[in-house]
């Protein structure tokens, strides 16, 4: 079955504060959505990410390894978390994507995996 990455996007400086009612509601919604994914068999893998500032870019050119502090893409928006799901087709994946967006109250990018 085709697989898709559903990625959640935040502003680069976004830091979740789980003590707020908004964050607690989103956590509950995402939890319920995860349960649905697992019971329907669409679930493959998922995770929330630490802030983009915690990232390190490692490059290897001709055996030479270098490290850069921070995320690779120098954009204002950074990936905050993701699901890898399986769905029978594009429309089914987009529907799961729209439910994911409703659950986390954030834009979600739906992108097919190769193969």
């Amino acid at each position, binding site marked *: 079955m085709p697989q898709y990455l559903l990625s959640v996007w935040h502003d680069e400086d976004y830091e979740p504060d789980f003590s707020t009612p908004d964050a607690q509601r989103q956590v509950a919604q995402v939890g319920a959505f995860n349960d649905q994914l697992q019971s329907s068999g669409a679930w493959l893998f998922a995770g929330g990410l630490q802030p983009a500032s915690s990232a390190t870019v490692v490059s290897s050119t001709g055996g030479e390894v270098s490290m850069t502090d921070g995320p690779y893409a120098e954009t204002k928006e950074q990936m905050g978390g993701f699901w890898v799901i399986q769905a*029978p*087709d594009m*429309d089914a994946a987009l529907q799961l994507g729209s439910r994911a967006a409703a659950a986390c109250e954030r834009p979600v990018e739906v992108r097919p995996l190769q193969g």
Partner: protein
Amino acid sequence: MTDSLETVFRREAGRCTATLIRLLGDIDLAEEAVAEAFTIAAEQWPIRGIPPNPGGWITTTARNRAIDRLRREATRTDRHHAAHRLHSEAMDPDHNPEIADLDAFVVVVADDQLRLMFLCCHPALAADSQVALTLRLLGGLETAEIARAFLVPETTMAQRIVRAKRKLHDNHATYRIPRAAELPDRLAAVLGAIYLIYTEGHTATTGTSLTRTDLSTEAIRIGRVVVALMPDEPEAMGLLALMLLTEARRPARVDSLESMVRLTDQDRSLWTRALIEEGHDLVRACLRRNQPGPFQLQAAIAAVHADSPSAEATDWSQIVTLYDQLYAIRPNPVVALNRAVAVGSLEGPSAGLDALTRVDLDGYQPYHAARADLLARAGRTDEALAAYTRAIELTSNPAEREFLERQRGNIADSEL
């Protein structure tokens, strides 16, 4: 003979491609096969004559050619897979739709056209990609023709089409008719794309001629196909009616000097009666359904204009009522602008300007043109001149610019 083949091609290319995509499970293979079948037709038909069911002949020939090709080229696994799909299809390779159950064949073809329409206008594709794919696959237009119509380089248009097809392929888009629950949104996307094609043809955003007939004609042709395929969708009828009623005014939209003529100044005897009558019939059919939607309401407004023997006799109160209904379901500033213009005609320029105060469309040329006209009629000449100047800055259409400059000149002259 060449003309007949051309006629058959215009009528059948989209239908044949639609069916071949289902049979082959691949857009590119389907396009290649249909093109090949038309090449064979161009060789054979002048000698043997056009077959009684040309579309069936093209579809069968394209399918047989695709099978031959896949057998020859079955080295890549995905083509293997496509070849398998072909063999498992109920249609026998030697099946001849000319003598088989034509009704069943026609139903399948109709469903295929709907599938293709919904695929081309998938909401995950950008509007310009939807339009390009619809014209290419359903309209059977060459990429170069579409590029010319939209005044973009052919490579740009080719890339747009390739990307859209690739996106559908990579995302595992299915070739299907949307379920009832999805249908309203999906149909709205289809109708929106067709209307975009129409308006692009009707008012070219750039280029010297105000209208580009080919795109409008193509949009109306596709609109007719949608109505035939989905006779129970009043919005599809509304869209067709709106296009026909707008198209009816085409002969009066530009004068002998290729300058734009406003609706109120048009010579109504030039309007195409047959298109108006067809549009009216559709509007009446919509009214009977009593499920108003944006296209139906816009068509009803166009019908009120078409009904009126002169600009002065226009039933503006009916038009304002229809705009109120339209604004209730589509509360956007462009609708508010058009409503304000109607209010200005019904109750006078001051009332129109009052209605316009709630509209914020500073970057929109028609806003400034409408405001300028109301200001001029209200005797506020300086403000009117400034508004025309702003409108002229914002237009990219030479005929429109010429019209606006003429209007500005008229009120400047009357000042002297």
